[in-house]
């Protein structure tokens, strides 16, 4: 008897679909509902409210800076974890994963205790006239804290997957280590790096708990899209729904971008 494909002994597809469909619907339905409850013109009208516009700009600005920082600071760490065996690597690895698993609001409390005015660091900064809490800098810090592990994880996996023989070959042909890194390692890891970048950006975009604790809630300065949803929900449900729909659109765009990037830049050598 010919089998449909390589997975012999698999349960029938119909049964699998029966088991899989509930979760697909459970995740899909609320997301579809966000867009179905109001007409596109209404969505646009509510999105043009000052609350939504200011929150959108602030969110775009802060998440772009946060993502750039996550990449710049995450790249060396990811490479270190992927290529350099050292004592305590497991500890560092676990530490970097922690922001993914701890509740974001806990991260906010921790940031406040570390960088707040009364903290060791905050007191020194206060003397210099620098204050972090309640500023856009606090928003970016909360986003970097929560989002950078997503980049580090992806980048590390990307670096690990690069065939070391190619790098060795380049070295034997006389390329400097830096040149090998930028012309061999990074291009080969590019799909993973881009996927990590987009994931980190999407996570920064959805940051709420740590931002609320550490940065507060003030329009144009610390009120990002997620905080604007919470604020709008208390007085203007339609605007809250419209901002939520916009956030969903941004998240979908991010995932599509990650997929396209992975396909477009899949390294020819890999």
């Amino acid at each position: 008897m010919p089998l449909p494909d390589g997975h012999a002994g698999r349960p029938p597809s119909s049964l699998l679909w029966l088991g899989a469909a509930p979760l697909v619907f459970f995740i899909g339905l609320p997301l579809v509902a966000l867009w179905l409850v109001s007409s596109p013109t209404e969505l646009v009208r509510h999105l043009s409210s000052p609350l939504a516009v200011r929150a959108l700009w602030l969110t775009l600005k802060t998440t772009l800076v946060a993502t750039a920082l996550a990449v710049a600071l995450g790249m060396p760490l990811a490479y270190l974890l992927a290529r350099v065996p050292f004592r305590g690597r497991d500890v560092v690895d676990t530490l970097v994963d922690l922001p993914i698993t701890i509740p974001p609001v806990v991260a906010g409390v921790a940031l406040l205790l570390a960088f707040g005015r009364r903290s060791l660091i905050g007191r020194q900064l206060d003397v210099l006239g620098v204050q972090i809490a309640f500023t856009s800098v606090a928003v970016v810090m909360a986003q970097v804290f929560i989002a950078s592990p997503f980049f580090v994880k992806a980048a590390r996996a990307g670096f690990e997957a690069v065939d070391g023989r190619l790098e060795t070959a380049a070295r034997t042909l006389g390329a400097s280590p830096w040149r090998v890194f930028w012309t061999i390692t990074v291009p080969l890891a590019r799909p993973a790096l881009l996927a990590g970048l987009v994931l980190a950006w999407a996570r920064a975009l959805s940051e709420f708990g740590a931002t609320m604790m550490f940065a507060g809630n003030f329009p144009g300065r610390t009120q990002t899209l997620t905080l604007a949803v919470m604020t709008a929900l208390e007085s203007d449900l339609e605007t809250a729904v419209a901002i939520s729909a916009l956030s969903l659109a941004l998240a979908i765009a991010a995932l599509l971008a990650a997929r396209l990037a992975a396909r477009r830049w899949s390294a020819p050598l890999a």
Partner: protein
Amino acid sequence: MPRARAGLVAVIAVAAQVSSAETLHVSAAASLTEAFQEIGQLFERSHPGAAVEFNFAGSQVLRTQIEQGAAVDVFASADLVHADALEASGLLGPYQVFARNRVVVVVPAQHGKVGRLQDLARPGMKVVVAGATVPVGRYTTQVLGKLSAAGLYGDDFQARVQANLVSQETNVRVVLSKVALGEADAGFVYATDAATATDKIRVIDIPGRHNVIAEYPIGLLVKSPAPEKAKAFVALVLGEEGRAILLKRGFAR
């Protein structure tokens, strides 16, 4: 946007019905936390088998939840605005004012940069308030308006203080904690909230003629799942024992 409302109603209503019908659900303003918890314990002692579950939050949050179909028995707000709105939409029955409160400025107990009311307007001060829909946030704006109008600190006092605002929180207790943590230089809260954190904060009084009187209404929801218990709870709050607890916590009658 009726479809959005219908959808949210369904979601919240389902969530609300998960809890047991034997439990009395009281939605109360955040500033009532300690007083109502004590009254709740008293209620559970005098009504064996009854359990009171509180939802403490900004009154505007509680109102939205009720409008979206949350199954609540008793609503106690920190201002008449939200109670009036619920009454007008037929969700809340007649209400009674059971307590009064006033607004104070709180500053960190140590290393405070704000010593007097006029310091609030000094450039660079970090002032935290509650949002415009939160009762105490609205009272704050009124107080600043009165202080400005009185001309004590210049008639642009309100504008100068507002230039120092760094966060608009969703309820009075978050304002209090930001000051208690020392992150903010000053915040506007109720006198009763200030009394819950005297070790961490210092109070600057606002003279009565420039202050407002916050009125706390309490009432039964028209669709209360447990109306008998709800009535008994409201009676306890309005009665001698309830009043004694509220007075002890600093509320006025």
